[in-house]
């Protein structure tokens, strides 16, 4: 008879686990950001690469040191700090000095993420929190964009002033802007990758962009002019925001209906900011404000559970 002398492992069901892990998801997000990152470096040169490296080093080191000092388990292995650092860098103009990336990175990780309990607990997208902090502190430097060494207005600012822009340049990204936001195509490639690997849910970006287009069509200065609408979609970091930052797990609703409501709010806020405010962009602020509404949205969108309400004949 088979004798098993040692006792075997026991645990409560289930006894199997999927291969999915936090680290794997973050890795997929990093891979999905590579086209936009690559385009940014190609377009803005080695300074862009330096800013990206500084930003990532800052976020990872901040998380590591904070957890060491606070004697907490070190979680940099889940790669989420790298995602934050990369996203922050992609949201910076290439002309900012390196120490601003450091300030932004420390703010993002320390204040927005770690002070609120680390991964999953932050109430606001850390990268966008860092960016907004920098915009408020260093407004001029954060809103000065250069392309090929020449300081120029962004296409959205030109549109706002009533000038013409080249829509095709905006789609491929030959425009001034932050490092990662310029190429709508590069961002879309990454977004499709994320959707195929089931990392992000279509609900948020889809409702966000749809609501935004409808809003601009109804209340914008040019009505339903397709070139104008495409320019609005491609510019101002909207694609990067919709696919990579509005979909941030911790700061978007987990309920299916909540995601749709969240997307609609994002679209409305971005539309309002672009049409009525003095600045031409507004994606960052729309997202961080919507982030604050997430607990409320979740509370009102608890899904109806299976079988409640009795028979369904």
């Amino acid at each position: 008879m088979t004798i098993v002398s040692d006792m075997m492992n026991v645990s409560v069901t289930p006894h199997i686990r999927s291969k999915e892990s936090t680290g794997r998801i973050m890795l997929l997000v990093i891979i999905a950001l590579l086209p936009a990152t690559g385009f940014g470096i190609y377009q803005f040169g080695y300074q862009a690469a330096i800013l990206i490296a500084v930003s990532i080093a800052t976020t990872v080191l901040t998380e590591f040191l904070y957890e060491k000092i606070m004697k907490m388990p070190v979680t940099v292995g889940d790669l989420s700090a790298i995602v934050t650092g990369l996203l922050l860098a992609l949201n910076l103009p290439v002309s900012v000095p390196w120490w601003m990336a450091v300030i932004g990175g420390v703010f993002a990780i320390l204040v927005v993420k770690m002070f609120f309990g680390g991964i999953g607990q932050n109430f606001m997208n850390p990268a966008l929190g860092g960016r907004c902090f920098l915009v408020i502190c260093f407004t001029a430097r954060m809103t000065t964009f250069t392309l090929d060494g020449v300081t120029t207005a962004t296409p959205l600012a030109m549109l706002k002033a009533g000038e013409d822009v080249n829509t095709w340049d905006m789609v491929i990204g030959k425009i001034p802007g932050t490092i990662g936001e310029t190429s709508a195509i590069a961002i879309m490639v990454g977004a499709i990758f994320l959707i195929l690997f089931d990392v992000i849910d279509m609900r948020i970006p889809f409702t966000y962009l749809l609501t935004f287009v409808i809003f601009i069509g109804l209340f914008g200065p040019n009505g339903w002019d397709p070139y104008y609408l495409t320019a609005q979609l491609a510019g101002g970091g909207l694609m990067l925001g919709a696919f990579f930052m509005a979909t941030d797990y911790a700061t978007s609703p987990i309920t299916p209906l909540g995601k749709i409501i969240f997307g609609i709010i994002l679209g409305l806020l971005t539309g309002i900011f672009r049409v009525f405010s003095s600045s031409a962009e507004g994606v960052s602020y729309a997202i961080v404000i919507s982030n604050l509404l997430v607990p409320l949205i979740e509370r009102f969108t608890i899904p109806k559970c299976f079988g409640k309400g009795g028979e369904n004949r």
Partner: protein
Amino acid sequence: MATLTFKGGIHPYDGKDLSKDKPIQEIVPQGEMVYPLSMHIGAPATPIVEAGERVLKGQKIAEAAGFVSSPVYASVSGTVRTIEKRLTVTGDRVDCIIIDNDGLYEEAPPMPVKPVEDMTKEDILTLIREAGIVGMGGAGFPTHVKLSPKEPDKINYVIANCSECEPYLTSDYRRMMEVPERLVLGLKIILLLFDHAKGILAVEDNKPDCIRKLKELVIDEPRISVKVLKTKYPQGSERQLIYATTKRAINSSMLPADAGCIVNNVDTICAVFSAVIEGHPLMYRVVTVTGDAVNDPRNFIVPIGTNYAQLIDAAGGFKVKPEKIVSGGPMMGFALFDINVPVTKTSSALLCMSKDEVAKWKPSQCIKCGKCLEVCPARLMPSKLADFAENGDEEQFVKYNGMECVECGSCSYTCPAKRQLVQSIKYQRRTILANRKKNK
């Protein structure tokens, strides 16, 4: 034809190829046999034999103690050694009748049966009850109770749960491949109890050969149809199965009968056939012995009471030292710390895994990805419920419908942060249920 399904669910590695082509073999047990008096939901059976008494195979050794209870039969001939507490698959020590197998397999006469046409509904129910048949899919609810709803005329569907959605399990599959006529005839017998009911054989689409066989068999049966389900876990969960086949949704406060449905597992229906037609009480069940730690994964027909260790020997022993052994499937089965426990009426499989996937991962903080919501077949918010459970917030737990959880474990399987979601929810649920019972 479009396949039927429910919303949510997961697609784990199914491991069925290990054992699906291995015909059912009979196990001839050696040495002592252990019969727990509680292999079912309800009152433990009352022993009716004494130490030293000689018993025959098929002799009743314990009587049902009330309506919601079930008798126990000896599956070998031999001498009763004693009645004492023994370890069972759940890790509990329960009263068991121990019989020394004399290897003669001398049989007691079967239960007296009439031709089915001459039986009344009561005759059929009595035979099912007397045979000690319980839900053999895992829950062990006495079948005669299930088949005695308050209003039998309001039952519209008797569903044979042939989905076998648990990974690795192939015991139902082998039954359907080898003796599908027993399943169909068993279902016909159950349909005799319900005048207004139709029979449904619900099979997942990963078993096309079964679907073909069953369809051929029911071609002339106006009351029975085969329905094809999408292969997905937990397709065989009662509530999900009823929804997939009839589009009727029941919640935790309802019984399947409230939606006009009765669900029975394959092995249970086969047991009904052999009780009502052949007069055999429940003495055997089909067990899949599988996993990457056994040499030769197989399906066995096993006398109830056999020690699990003998099944390992019959499957060629261990290839490598297993880290985890599970009685039942990997999603809902019981992990064993000691393999020397008896096969019961509800043991569907013995899964031996060389690696313990649970131990490999360390739970980490929730990242709020919402994947648990996507897979939850009860459409709950598992991450929130687990938070409430971990904080002991009973009020919020109930408000967020925590009591509707079917404990399928899809959330824990999926969670990228490897949180113990269903584990926390289950604990809170059980606590609340126990308190409610106490306060009644």
